[in-house]
C-alpha cells in the first residue's frame, strides 16, 4: 500500500514564454513572460527585424521540454 513518496510527486514551476508577433512584418519571437502580459495585448516593444514598435502577443504557454533522444 506504499504510495508515491512526496518527492516524486513534486511538480516544478516552469514559467511560460510570451510569443509576440510584429504587426507590420509578421515576424514572431518569444521571451520570458512578464507580468501584465496577456494574449492579444499590443505592446510597444520594438520588432527585432523591422524596427516597428508594436508587437501583438499571440500566445503565452509553457514550451514542451524536448525529449532526450
Amino acid at each position, binding site marked *: 500500500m506504499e*504510495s508515491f513518496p512526496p518527492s516524486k510527486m513534486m511538480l516544478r514551476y516552469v514559467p511560460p514564454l510570451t510569443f509576440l508577433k510584429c504587426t507590420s512584418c509578421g515576424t514572431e519571437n518569444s521571451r520570458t513572460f512578464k507580468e501584465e502580459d496577456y*494574449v492579444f495585448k499590443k505592446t510597444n516593444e520594438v520588432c527585432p527585424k523591422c524596427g516597428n514598435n508594436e508587437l501583438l502577443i499571440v500566445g503565452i504557454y509553457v514550451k514542451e521540454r524536448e525529449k532526450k533522444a
Partner: protein
Amino acid sequence: MMEDLFLNQLRGFDETGLGMLVWLIWLGLMMLFLFYPTMSQRIQLGYMLRDLEKKLARLKLVKDEVRERTIETIKRIGKPEKDPTQDIDKLMEFFVIEPESMDPYGIVYKLEHILETGESRFEEEIRKLSPAAEDYKVKTLANLMEVARTTNYLYRIVRHYYLLGKKTANIYLILQLQMLMPQLMEMTEALRLASYAFAYGQPIGDGIGVLAAAKLAYGKEKARYEIAKDTTVSEIEFENRRVLIVRATGPGGTVGRPGEGVKKLIEREGDNVKLIITIDAGLRLEGDESGKMVEGVGVAIGGPGIDKYKIEEIAKERQIPLYAFVIYESIVEAITPMREVIAKAADVVVEKIKSVLLEKVPAGSTAIIAGIGNTVGIG
C-alpha cells in the same frame, strides 16, 4: 576447514543452550501472534500513519507556501494600507453552504444565487484589500485567494481523517485515506502551481475554450459588448453567417456567466439561431493524449452545472442542436500554466468550428459559440 568451524559453532550453540533460547523466542513470537491477532495490523497501522504524517507535513508546507504567495501578491499588486494577513486568514476559512436538496425543485437557481453571493462577497473583500489593483486584477486575485482557500480546506480534511484514524486506531479509515492520498497530493501540487499562474496572471489550461473562441473572433469583430456579468459577446460574420461568440471577459481570472449569456442571446435572436457550440477543456483519461480535440453533442461546461442547465433548457425549448468540442487535459494541466500542446489545440478548434459552421448552419442564419473556461491572461 571452514565447514568444520561452522559445525563446531553449531554444536557450541547447542551446548551453551543458546539454541534453546532462540527456539523459545520463536515460540514466544508465535504465541504472541496467536493470542494477539491484531498485532500485525497494529504494525501496519503504524507504518501507514507514518506515511500519512509525511504527506500531511507536505500538505501543510504547500498550504503555507500558497498563503504566503497570496499575501505577498496582494501586498504587491493591491498595495493595501494595512497588513492584509489577518483578513486573508479569515478568507481562507470562508465557506459556502449548498442548498437543501430534499425538495429539488428550483435547486439550480438557489445554487446560482448562493454561488453568486459567495463570489461577489469574495470579490468585494479582495477589492477592499487591494485599493491599487485594476478591476480585472481584482478578479485574478480573488482566484488566487480561492486557490489558497482550497489548499487550506484540503489540508484540514486530510488532517481530520488522519487524526480521527489515529485516535480511534481505525485501520479501515486510514486505509481509505491512504488510497486517496496519491490523487490528493497531485491536486495539492497542482494548486501550488496554480497559485503562480494567478499571482502573475498567466493563462491556465482551463482557458483553452476561451482562447479558441478569442482566436476565432480576433480581428473580425463587428461588435463587442457585455451580455452578463464578466461575459462578453463578440459578433463576427463568417461566410454570410452571423456568429455570436460568448466568452468570459479577460484578461482577469473569471469564468463569467456563459449560461446566462447564451440564454439572453437566444431570447434576443429568436429562431435565427440554428446551432450552439460549446468549447471547453475536458478531463482526459489516463493514457489519453493531452491537447487532443474531440467532438460530441451536449453542453461542454464543467463546474456546478448552472450554466449547463440554462443552455440545455433553452436549447430544448427552441429545438436548437447542441454541439460540443472538448480539449483533453489532466486535472493538473487544467489549473496550471497552459502547456504548449494545449495552446496549439486552439488553432485546430478554430478550423474545425469553421467547417462545422459551413456544414451545419445555413447561410443567413446565426450560430452561437461559447468558449468556456477561466480567462486569466487572455485578453
